[in-house]
């Protein structure tokens, strides 16, 4: 007794693999056209940007922000961990000693004099956020920052640091 787990056994010496009806392809075409037609009457899945915007999660990796602590002091200490971690070499930092006039803005002697992120090089992976020991840099869910020149998309520290009084939250 042949065991073939239920598959239909066809004569291996027959001329064609398909039946005549199958070879005409008419049933196949008709079934295909039925499927296509059903899609014609379904609601399209398009999100009509800019009238409608896609919903992104609060963990979605968009524009970066350098946060301050509850006293208004910048958390970034210029340790350059994010610059090291960045796989796209998008972050450029010049670190230095905090000058006397800026003492009230920092918790330590070291700070980032210049902090540039090239938003066009950045791949929005979030490794800088993971690498930061001070919980200074985060990626926010904001994504509408298109510009018309490459220069405008190299963000410096002023553009990246949040304003005083911004929300304090740690990403979960």
């Amino acid at each position, binding site marked *: 007794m042949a065991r073939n787990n239920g598959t239909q056994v066809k004569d291996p010496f027959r001329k064609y693999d398909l039946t005549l009806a199958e070879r005409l392809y008419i049933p196949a*075409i008709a079934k*295909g*056209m039925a*499927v*296509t*037609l059903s*899609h*014609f009457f*379904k609601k*399209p*899945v*398009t999100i*009509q940007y800019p009238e409608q915007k896609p919903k992104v999660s609060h963990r979605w990796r968009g524009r970066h922000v350098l946060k301050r602590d509850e006293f208004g002091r910048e958390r970034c200490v210029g340790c350059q961990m994010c610059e090291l971690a960045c796989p796209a070499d998008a972050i450029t930092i010049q670190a230095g000693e905090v000058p006397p006039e800026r003492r009230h803005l920092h918790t330590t002697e070291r700070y980032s004099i210049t902090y540039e992120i090239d938003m066009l090089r950045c791949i929005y992976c979030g490794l800088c956020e993971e690498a930061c020991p001070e919980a200074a840099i985060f990626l926010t869910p904001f994504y509408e920052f298109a510009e018309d020149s490459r220069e405008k998309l190299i963000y410096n520290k002023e553009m990246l640091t949040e304003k005083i009084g911004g929300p304090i939250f740690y990403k979960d």
Partner: protein
Amino acid sequence: MPDIAAFLLEKILLAVFLFIVVLAVVAYATLGERKIAGFFQDRHGPNRAGPWGLFQPIADGVKFFMKEEMIPDRASKVAFVIAPTFTFTAAGLLMAAIPFGDRILIGGREVLLQLADIHIGILYILAVGSLGVYGIIVGGWASNNKYSLMGGLRASSQMISYEIAMGLAIVALLIDHGTPSLRQIVLQQSGSLWHWSVFSNPLGFLIFYVAAFAEASRIPFDLPEAENELVAGYHTEYSSMKFGLFQFGEYTHMTLSSGIIATLYFGGWNIPWVAVPEQATFWWGLLTFAVFWAKTLFFMFVFMWVRWTIPRFRYDQLMYLGWKRLIPLGILNIFLTAGLLLLFQQIGWAR
């Protein structure tokens, strides 16, 4: 003399009117294609240029006017520029014989909504439709580009292969109707729904329809165009308006092919179970015109429907289908039709 002048004026006005109508339908067929393609793919088509994208064809027209025209340095200039006009002219000439409607009463005159009721209408259609191949060959050759040449040769070989199948399908239709005049064919299909030729000649319809797809280079027979997207093809070197004319010619061909299919097999401007009146009125003419276009638009929709369903043929599969399957089927269909007609005449079923 005044008779001839009135006749000429009537024909010229009718020609201009029909030309404008067909061009408008073709222009909006491009929009329709994109919208319908979108809905088949679960997306909207163009909807930014005007409500539902209704200004899109105008935007496309303006784009074609404003784009830079390029003629390759070593191309045969005259042939290069003329080639797209062959395609469009051949497609446009088709509209001379198609019956767009029955007689219409305008301003006291009874005007037939058909530019020329040629007594060999079908032969004219076949002949003129074949002229479109010249555009492809000349375009491919004049481009001074190896790939364009090969693409053009492939496209033209595809088109001429399927013209034979088309002709054979039409022979069977001629046996059924006994006259190549398109108006007579439509009139013979009046009366009941079952008088439509698709019921007396279903195999012929299938063969003709498949051949029409191949003539219009529509998927699944669009290998010339798919290659164009990927590699090259007969309209690689064409830019701006000349390219636009190639595309426009292709859409015109598709539109008028749909019209021909509606005429030959689906009763043309006939409404099922409505008899053709002795005296035509304005409303009757308008009604038949609308019915013709409704059927034509439906077949255009089917063209697009099939396009987004079936994958395209490989070149050798295409040739095999045309020569070794459709032509024998066409010949078989002729024998069948003739035999059945004889049989039904003996029994008394046929006219």
